[in-house]
């Protein structure tokens, strides 16, 4: 995928081990499972719920310079769409090389239409997207 994914909950690494070894859906987990039992990292990212001691479903993309490029937080009962996470990551990677372009909402992968903001495009985004 081109990025280091770290999953994080407020469970310990020992519970991560027990869960991973029990749950068939996790048989092929390739990501390090991060343990944040004090909630320190979850607090830093604003996803810690002090009423429950749990972390909300937050996703954060950090570039190789350590800059936060994307954030999304879902409440407990709303799952995330991995295709959308991949789209956001690929777009961030692309834009890190083409900073003067913009990835519109339907951009999925390199080669798809991008936009370069200009005076010419004001009021003409529809034409620019469909030319």
């Amino acid at each position, binding site marked *: 995928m081109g990025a280091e994914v770290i999953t994080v909950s407020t469970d310990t690494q020992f519970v991560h081990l027990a869960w991973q070894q029990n749950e068939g859906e996790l048989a092929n987990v390739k990501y390090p*499972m991060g343990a944040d039992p004090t909630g320190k990292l979850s607090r830093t990212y604003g996803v810690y719920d002090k009423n429950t001691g749990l972390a909300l479903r937050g996703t954060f993309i950090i570039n190789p310079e*350590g800059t936060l490029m994307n954030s999304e937080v879902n409440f*407990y009962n709303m799952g995330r769409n991995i295709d959308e996470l991949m789209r956001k990551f690929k777009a961030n990677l692309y834009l890190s090389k083409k900073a003067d372009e913009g990835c519109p909402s339907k951009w999925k992968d390199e080669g798809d239409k991008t936009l370069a903001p200009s005076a010419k495009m004001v009021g003409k985004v529809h034409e620019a997207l469909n030319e």
Partner: protein
Amino acid sequence: MSKLKLGAPVPDFEIDTYDAVAGDFGKVSLADLKSEGKWTILFFYPADFTFV
């Protein structure tokens, strides 16, 4: 809420991990990932033994 801002640097962190590929415990450090030129995706979820 978080004091982190989009487009601004995040503080370095180091966190204990369970690495299923290695079958062992370990640590992940943002400073190391940065020095390896890697992008990092943090994926928080409420609890083990529930859906993610």
